[in-house]
């Protein structure tokens, strides 16, 4: 089986959490997912904040990114829920509304691009869960995360709204829990598991105190479940969980120490890559407890 995708980086992955980019580039080709860079791609742009300011601009810029993938003749792969939401929603909107498509196509012609509508947009969780499959992932696990208790965070835009995403149950999804189990780890249940991290819709930047109140509740529930770490598939949730712990400490004197791993970083650990190769030691939160549990050399900073 050979899968090949146009790799859409977005903003937060290359510019704030390059460890997730490194993990993608190391891990995916080894499990049969080839990546080709979408050279010159921009911000998706962010569905919440930019879509809220100007839906027309949001759609126009998203369509350019889709055109770049069309030029490569490859479906788009994102490792971010926000980019996934923007690119797949924009793709649908351009296909469904001829009026909007005509307007955008007109602008694209001005820069020598043409939207045809022949590429699909895939999220990494969907590709790993449905195309690669847990069984194949298991075959590549050399260092199972056997004693690690993981709190899975899906992130809202991966599964909602169901009419657009249509690949897992929006209120009770299982795709990511299954992928975590494939690494030999335990996926722990916790209260309000599907609750929003509080970052989306421009709330993190626009109304930070409200955003952190939502995060605090999430982290408290995860801590109560005695999880060792969080595994997510959205770099923006990732930023909220990781940097948000520092902000909660600084602004409200509330302390947590819960490391945050993108699924590809967790997969990387299970395939034998070190903490530093996956950029986990570059993040705000890393601790000795999880380093000890990982043990065997790759747990050290």
């Amino acid at each position, binding site marked *: 089986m050979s899968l090949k995708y146009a790799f859409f980086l977005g903003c937060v992955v290359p*510019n704030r959490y390059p460890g997730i980019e490194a993990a993608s580039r190391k891990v995916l080709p080894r499990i049969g997912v080839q990546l080709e860079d979408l050279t010159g791609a921009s911000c998706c742009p962010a569905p919440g904040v930019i879509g809220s300011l100007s839906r027309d601009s949001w759609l126009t810029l998203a369509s350019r990114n889709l055109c770049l993938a069309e030029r490569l003749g490859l479906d788009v792969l994102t490792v971010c829920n926000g980019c996934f939401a923007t690119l797949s929603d924009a793709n649908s909107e351009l296909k469904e509304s001829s009026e909007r498509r005509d307007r955008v196509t007109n602008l694209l012609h001005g820069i020598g691009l043409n939207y045809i509508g022949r590429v699909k947009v895939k999220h990494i969780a969907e590709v790993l869960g449905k195309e690669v499959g847990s069984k194949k992932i298991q075959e590549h696990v050399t260092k199972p995360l056997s004693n690690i208790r993981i709190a899975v965070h899906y992130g809202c*835009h991966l599964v909602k709204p169901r009419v657009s995403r249509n690949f897992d149950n929006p209120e009770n999804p299982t795709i990511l829990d299954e992928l975590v189990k494939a690494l030999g780890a335990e996926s722990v249940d916790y209260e309000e598991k599907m609750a*929003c991290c509080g970052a989306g819709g421009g709330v993190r930047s626009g109304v930070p105190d409200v955003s952190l109140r939502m995060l605090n509740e999430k982290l408290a529930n995860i801590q109560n479940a005695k999880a060792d770490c969080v595994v997510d598939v959205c770099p923006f949730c990732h930023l909220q969980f990781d940097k948000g712990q520092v902000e909660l400490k600084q602004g409200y004197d509330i302390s947590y120490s819960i490391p945050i791993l993108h699924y590809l970083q967790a997969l990387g650990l299970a395939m034998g890559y070190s903490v530093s190769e996956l950029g986990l030691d570059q993040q705000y939160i890393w601790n000795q407890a999880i380093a000890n549990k990982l043990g065997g050399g790759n747990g050290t900073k």
Partner: protein
Amino acid sequence: MATAKTDLEAPRKIVSRRNDFANEVTKAGGVNINKCLQCGRCTASCPSGKHTAYRTRMIIRRAMAGFREEVLAGDDIWLCTTCYTCYERCPRGIDVVKVIQTLRNMSMRVGGMLPAHRAVALNLYKTGHAVPIDPDNKDKRLKLGLPEVPPTVHSSSIALSEVHELLEQAGFLDVLETALTKQIRVRPPEEGLFL
């Protein structure tokens, strides 16, 4: 002192206000808010409303009743994280997130933008990334064996000029400019509307 004539006219006036604004929102976003039956499932499901006085149902109600200024110039519509739980659970299938986004787009025309969003928008225009690279992350990239600057619009001046052109043509700068020059923000009345 109210005359008998104005008392009789008042209900008609409210009906006409509702039609104007609610229909404008419905047309702009393609989601019919007049279908809302005010059950409050959206409010009960809202993670933001759990921690604030934000009430999704109330936003829709005010929009239906034609309270244009209160909705568009107030802070409340900016408290939605776009998590879509309300849309998932709405018994009338109303895409509430799209309604909120439509209201936000309309709010930009009366200066409703939050200051922090201006910075994000300018980042997008100037660099092609809402979250651009910084020296700290260039350093992190190099340590990971990645190129110092990612192979995105950050690595191509041609790509950046395409982004500029598209955003200008799509009216992005005009939208920002309008939002900046209007600047009329008021908080919506917290009580007394009996809605």
